[in-house]
């Protein structure tokens, strides 16, 4: 092959593609809480996560498991607040949806993910009323409730990341076991804890998703 060496770029071995979006983490034996961390300072509202989630999970039209919403612009031009806010299930530690679901279709796994059992849900929508985050939707075609599942079908044991985390153009999403201090998410959280916030933690739901406030443009957060 006459391909000059200096033209070549470093490439992964084929088996390493599988592992690129994974992290190798030592287990700690503590209970797991898989969750997301979203750095709002980096979110540019590109919706790559929203669309990647839909394609990964084959979500129907009109239903969104994660949705990038926006706040504002609020104020008077040009002195405005404006930020993007990716919204999805907060995978609460004390989820209200689990408490109120009459069929126990909604449940929380041992590693902290809140899921909906499609064999049990009968579409009463009580969980949608009860969720303070408005992140559950009733699918008009199946009649059942759907929401973010933190890509539970992926190999979380080996650190495989959900589709939204892998797609994020601004590198603002992190995923992992927040109770394990060796994960990327725990380290990033520790480094930026001064900007950390959770939504509606006064309701006692103990949401697990951590948001980092934007450094600018969100003066009231």
């Amino acid at each position, binding site marked *: 092959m*006459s391909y000059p060496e200096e033209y070549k*770029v470093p490439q992964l071995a084929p088996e390493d593609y599988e592992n690129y979006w994974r992290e190798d983490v030592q287990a700690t034996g503590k209970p797991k809480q898989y969750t997301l961390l979203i750095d709002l300072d980096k979110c540019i509202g*590109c919706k790559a996560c929203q669309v990647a989630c839909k*394609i990964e999970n084959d979500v129907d*039209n*009109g239903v969104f498991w994660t949705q990038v919403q926006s706040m504002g612009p609020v104020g008077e031009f040009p002195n405005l*607040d404006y*930020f993007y806010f990716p919204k999805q299930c907060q995978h609460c530690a004390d989820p209200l949806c689990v408490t109120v679901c009459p069929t126990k279709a909604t449940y929380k796994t041992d590693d902290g993910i809140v899921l909906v059992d499609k064999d049990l849900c009968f579409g009463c929508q009580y969980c949608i009323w009860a969720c303070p985050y408005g992140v559950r939707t009733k699918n008009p075609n199946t009649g059942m409730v759907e929401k973010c599942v933190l890509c539970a079908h992926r190999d979380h044991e080996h650190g495989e990341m959900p589709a939204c985390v892998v797609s994020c153009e*601004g590198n603002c999403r992190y995923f992992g076991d927040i109770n394990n201090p060796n994960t990327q998410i725990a380290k990033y959280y520790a480094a930026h804890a001064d900007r950390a916030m959770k939504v509606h933690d006064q309701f006692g739901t103990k949401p697990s998703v951590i948001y980092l406030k934007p450094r600018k443009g*969100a003066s009231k957060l």
Partner: protein
Amino acid sequence: MPSVIYHDDGSKIVKTNCFDCHSKCGVLCHVDAQGVLTKVEGNPEDPRSQGRMCPKGRSAVKILNDPDRINYPMRRKGERGGGQWERITWDEALDEIETRCRQYMEMDGPRSIVFGQGTGRGCIPWIQRLNLTVSHVNHWTSPAHACLNPQLLTQMITMGMFNCWDGADHDDSDCIVSWGANMVWTEGAFIAGEVNRSRDRAAKLIVIDPCFEHPLAAKADHFLGIRPGTDLALAMAWIRLFIEEDRYDHDFIKRWTTLPLVVDAETEEAIPAAKVFEGVDEHALLMWDEDTDAVMLMPDFTDPEAKGNPALDLGTRELTLLDGSTIQVTTAWEALKGRVADMTPARAAEICWLEAQDIVDAFRTYADAERASIAMMQGVEEHTNCRLLIHAIDTIMGLGGNIDIKGGNVWHQFWNDMQDPSLTTMPTEYHAQNKLGNEGAFYNNSTGHGVWDAILTGKPYKVHAFIGIQGNPVSWCENPDRVVEAFKAIDFLVINDYYLSPAAQLADIVLPAAHWTERDFIADEFCQEWFYGQQKAVEPLYERKSDIELCRLIGKRLAPDQWPDDVYGVLNIALKKYGITYEELKEEWCMHLYPYREKKYETEGFRTPTRKAEFYSTVFAHAGRKDPLIRWEPPKESYETMPAEVIAEFPLILSTGRRYVNFYHSAYRGVPVLRELSPEPHFMINPTTAADLGIEPEEWCLIESPSGTRPIRMRAHVTAGVHPRVIIAPHGWWQGCKELGLPDYPDNSSNINCLISDQKYDPDLATPGMRSSLCKITKIQ
């Protein structure tokens, strides 16, 4: 490294590049054992995007299998635009193209066949080859008068390099300026990573844009919510501040630019050295040496032995010429100072609707940054004063000392450098310019306007056929009604596209275009220092063919000696200068063209006539505006230039063409997962303005302009993110989405370009005022 990784079950992963926009992010295409594309993911090895992907690329499987795609060649039955088609074979289509084109070439010469394109998805050099070999002209038509060419031409003329777009090196920058750009959306998968990494290092961010609903506006250290079309005043104010506050790079300006040139104090013409010294080259020019306090030949400082200390602040001096006469001279620098003298921050603030202190603060952040990069894109192009604006921004880059340094605006190769010259270099008998349209003195191609005129009037020469290798002129061109008129009148119209666009609907023959997942291509341009073998992931579905293959097939019929027998043959012409074949490039997937080296001008000079950065341009002096320097000029359709009664009726400023993350120009509105993010066309209007006009949020309204051919309709998005007198509206709305039950917009009913004048252009670059015109809004009763 193999670019196709096979799995035991017969499936494979193909390493290639997405081409749903110009970023060409590296992707991994998962193809199953039956050859069906199942999934597309980002490729973490891509040195630019590192595996990130935007919504469009992520939807590749949907676009590949979109039921609305054109799959077979078709010929119209019945009248143009009647919607009746019959399926034909490729041979029948090419036979008809060949026969008819040969007839037209007999009648009125090869130049009566005009080729066209849209945004260009990597086939521009091949279309250029078609023109040269088939039409025997060195031009075709495209939206380049509004996109790319304003910057490319201006930068090539002032600096001999193109250093914006992927040349803006945000990754190493201490200050990132987003000027008329939304680069984290439009080339997001690689630029968003760069910008965020730099912000983590506490790099400063300046956003100059009329729209606050911009992903970086709220995060910016300085947001300048500028009045559309007046960026030139801001740029001139910054230049004046550079000079007044003495924050400019003295060494760069003195040794590497034409600003020290000695010019006539009255006419500002450069004094040829031949008028002062005997026996020198007729092109040589003069500087005034500070040390000897006299004129001398302008040295070429790429020569390490060159001597001289060019003066900048010279005042006016007397110079005796060889013929004994004396003239008053000064430097081009002094002339530039004179041009910007009265553009104080206060005056610029008044023109631009900004605060003077904000202008100064933002300037100081840029000027004080050691390495600062400016991303400028179509927000600075689509204005009738764009040559002056881009020229001014180039000057700012030079004053800041940010040219061709890491973290600044870097000189990367563009496709004209990347491809082997034999791809588009032809024997001279093929080089007849004969371009159509003369709206811009330096615009080196045919304009749409010129082509439609030629079709409809036969002047300056008859055009019989228009062959569009992708592209939807009804969407990209100003005055789309005239495009429709021309397409209905032309003898022969051939369009290849993914979808039956408004242009394709009027065609005689429609050809099915292959998506990037179905074609072999080379990814160049916008790829910084890399180059890619962008191979197909799957065999083309149905009878689709790639744009390059189409060029080759047409070329083979009409100029058989100039076109190889297969696509790889065509691609190999481009790769000749690297000594590799397409097979080899494909196998490696990515090629690192060169390691980046700073300040190449110190050894190679600038590729301009004087080999300096021509902020005083020896080229712009001779045609168009005939002005070597910048000066303040308002947009042609603005408060400064229109009569009072027009302004009274059309009191708002219209800025069109704002971007989406989920669409690309007029494409992809039929893909449900992308369309549901933006179901209907909205224009942005300030709440106080909406209240004054009685407009509720989401209400359908009419938008009209003084140059518009008719009103168009869009929904109102009431937002505080725009100035009360500015309206921001998108282009590209024609397509419906059946699956979502969303309508299409036939007959240009929501085509914003109906409001843009096809009479007012930048005289140097032929650019229409798409981002700075006037309009009015009325609710639909």
